[in-house]
Structure formats: structure tokens, C-alpha cells
């Protein structure tokens, strides 16, 4: 095994093109678990910690560019919590302070788990994923980026470099069910916003992120619509039936909050 530590994005992309089977590692909260438990042995680890271009976030012509190395802690504590309140609420539910200090939205996207807490609030806000390689940049709508359970549209020489979105400034919220308020993988999660239309997306209830929309005057039937759009499974954390029921209840609660 080899660890390569680029110091610029250009260098990182060059290394990725030479080592397309490399595992990128940023916060390590997923990759290190695989290494510690011997679930994978990549020939090359690409350590992205020293690439400044991937850090932080910026405003560009009304849009936001969230660097893939943006941590949950930075979303939770900084100015972003007022701009992207549902994403900030989701970030607060991730793991523990230790995890939120290291884990990044780029990692959440790269892992592409149905339980990824950042995915529902980002999808509700219409986020696009910026992927880069030596061949150039492209942006993929988040709903198309995730192609299945832990699978995504990233080409083998590409890195996730950023997430782009234009904040809706709509009332929005995030909810998550688990046995504790910390250190849980969502049994089910939900992001809802109420701008020009009602928008919802859920976690741990479908293989890919799903966006559910409805006109504002159809709030009464929205919980049913959200629950019906899910395709949950029975697993160690919950049953299909419970998840669908929970989505119905959570959507009704979320609507009360965002329509108040």
C-alpha cells in the first residue's frame, strides 16, 4: 500500500489519473473503518487533507460552492447554519463531535450510502455535485449522482471537488430517527422545505435519493405522498413497515414546523 499526499488540486487530479484505483481519504470516518477492519486494501490511498482548494465554502454569483472537504462541524457552527438550516440540522445529527470535526460532505457523497445524512437536505435544495479530473469539470444533479446503494456516477479518475446549490431560503427542516440522539445511523431521516412548492427527501428508505414535490395547497396529502415514494427494506435497524409509517409521521411534523 502507498499513501500519496498531494498539496494542490491539480496534483491530486494528476495522481488520480495515474492511479484510478486509489481510494481518496479526507476525514477518514468511512475509509479508516474499512482499513481498520480489513474490509479493503487499496494499492493507493490518496490523502486529500493537504489540498486547500477542497476546504471551506464560498459564494459565487448568488450560488454557494461547498468544498468537498467541508466538515459537518463547519456547517453546524458557521454562517452556513443560517443559509442552509436543514443541512445544518442534519450535520448536528451526524455521529459525535469527534466525527463531525473530521467527516465531510464530499465523503458523505462519495460513500453514497442511503443513510447519508447530508443527502436529503442537499437534494431538497437542488444541489449539484462537481466532479473533476484531468479531463475537466462536470456537474451532476445529486439525484443522478447517486446511482444505487453505495454506488455513484463518479468516473474512476474523478474526484468530488464541491457541491453547488442556490439557497432557496425556504423554511426547511431535517428530522432523523434512531435509538439515540447521537452516534446513530438513521433508521429513517427526512428533509422538508416549503417554498414555492413542498419538497421532501428521505434517507434510509430508498436505494437512491428521491425528491418528492407537491403544490403548497396539497400539504394535507403530502405525508402520504412522501411515504408512498419510499421503497424501504427490512434490515437490522428497522422494518419496511416501520420506516414507511415513520416517514408519514415525520412529514406531518415537519410540515407543522415549516408551515408555521
Amino acid at each position: 500500500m502507498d499513501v500519496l499526499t498531494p498539496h494542490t488540486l491539480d496534483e491530486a487530479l494528476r495522481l488520480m489519473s495515474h492511479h484510478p484505483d486509489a481510494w481518496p481519504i479526507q476525514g477518514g470516518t468511512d475509509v479508516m473503518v474499512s482499513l481498520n477492519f480489513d474490509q479493503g486494501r487499496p494499492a493507493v490511498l490518496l490523502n486529500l487533507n493537504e489540498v486547500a482548494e477542497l476546504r471551506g465554502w464560498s459564494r459565487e454569483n448568488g450560488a454557494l460552492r461547498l468544498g468537498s472537504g467541508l466538515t459537518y462541524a463547519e456547517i453546524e457552527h458557521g454562517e452556513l447554519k443560517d443559509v442552509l438550516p436543514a443541512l445544518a440540522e442534519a450535520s448536528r445529527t451526524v455521529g459525535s463531535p469527534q466525527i463531525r470535526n473530521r467527516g465531510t460532505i464530499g465523503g458523505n457523497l462519495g460513500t453514497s450510502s442511503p443513510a447519508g445524512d447530508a443527502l436529503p437536505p442537499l437534494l431538497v435544495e437542488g444541489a449539484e455535485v462537481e466532479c473533476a479530473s484531468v479531463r475537466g469539470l462536470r456537474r451532476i444533479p445529486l439525484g443522478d449522482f447517486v446511482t444505487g446503494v453505495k454506488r455513484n456516477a463518479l468516473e474512476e479518475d474523478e474526484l468530488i471537488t464541491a457541491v453547488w446549490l442556490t439557497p432557496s431560503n425556504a423554511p426547511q427542516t431535517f428530522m432523523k430517527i434512531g435509538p439515540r440522539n447521537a452516534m446513530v445511523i438513521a433508521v429513517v431521516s427526512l428533509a422538508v422545505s416549503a417554498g414555492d412548492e413542498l419538497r421532501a427527501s428521505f434517507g434510509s428508505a430508498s436505494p437512491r435519493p428521491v425528491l418528492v414535490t407537491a403544490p403548497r395547497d396539497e400539504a394535507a396529502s403530502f405525508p402520504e405522498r412522501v411515504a408512498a415514494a419510499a421503497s424501504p427494506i427490512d434490515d437490522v435497524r428497522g422494518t419496511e413497515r416501520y420506516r414507511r409509517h415513520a416517514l408519514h409521521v415525520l412529514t406531518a411534523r415537519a410540515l407543522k414546523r415549516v408551515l408555521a
Partner: protein
Amino acid sequence: MRISLTINGEQHQADCWEGESLLFALREKLGFPGSKNACEQGECGSCSVLLDGTLVCACLVLAVQADGHDVTTVEGLADGDTLHVVQQAFVDAGAVQCGFCTPGLVVATADLLKRVPSPTDDEIREALSGNLCRCTGYAKIFDAVRLAASLS
């Protein structure tokens, strides 16, 4: 691969296998066994250290990622034979049972009190949510955090 890092204010070097964690390097290569190895997946917090001043699980940091960086372990908190106020508070409050979670909790508490000198119970609960005590001695641990806050 050789890494060079600052631990508790002193420069250290170690030869690491590329896939090993900072926790493994600290305990097995660098002579800092204070951080404990338990879950190896960021669930228990017993390996909590400060990386460049930020609270992290050392088991989830690749040792090579710490190359050129600054690490504070539980061994770096005391001043010679004088315990850190958090360590002394854990002793005085009886917050140590088997002791396995204690180093991580002490580091996490020191980090909390540096940021929030007088935390509410909810803030304590939140800050320590990533540190598990298998003896379930949380009531005394809370007493220790409140005691340390009152003394610092």
C-alpha cells in the same frame, strides 16, 4: 513510511505501515499508550486526541495524515506531577470506574471547557456524546465535568 509530528509539544518520528491509524502509531510506535483502543470505528471515543487543536478519534486518522501536524494526547494534559484540572476533578468526583474510557473523556472534557467554560448539562451531554463509558458511570462523569468547570 516515516512520519514526523509534534506530540504534546515535542517532535517525534515513527516508521508507519501506510494503512495504520494514528492511534496505532501513538500506542505501538511512539510510546503514548494513554489513548485507548476499543471500537476502531469512531463509536466509543476512548482514543480521543486533539489534532491541530481539534477533537478527533485517533482511530479514524490515518497515521500518515498526521505527518507534519500537532497532536495532543491525554499524556500532554498534566503539568509534570500536577494533574490537569479535569483529571483532578475526575479523581475527586469518583468519575473513574474501570478507567478505560477515562482518557478519552478527559480529553473531550478539556476540549469542551476550553471552548465553553461554564457548560450547561445539555452542552456537556452533547460534547461527550461520542464517548462511551461501559461501566455506565455517567452521573459521576457529569459531576466531574461540573466540578472541573467550577474550578477552572
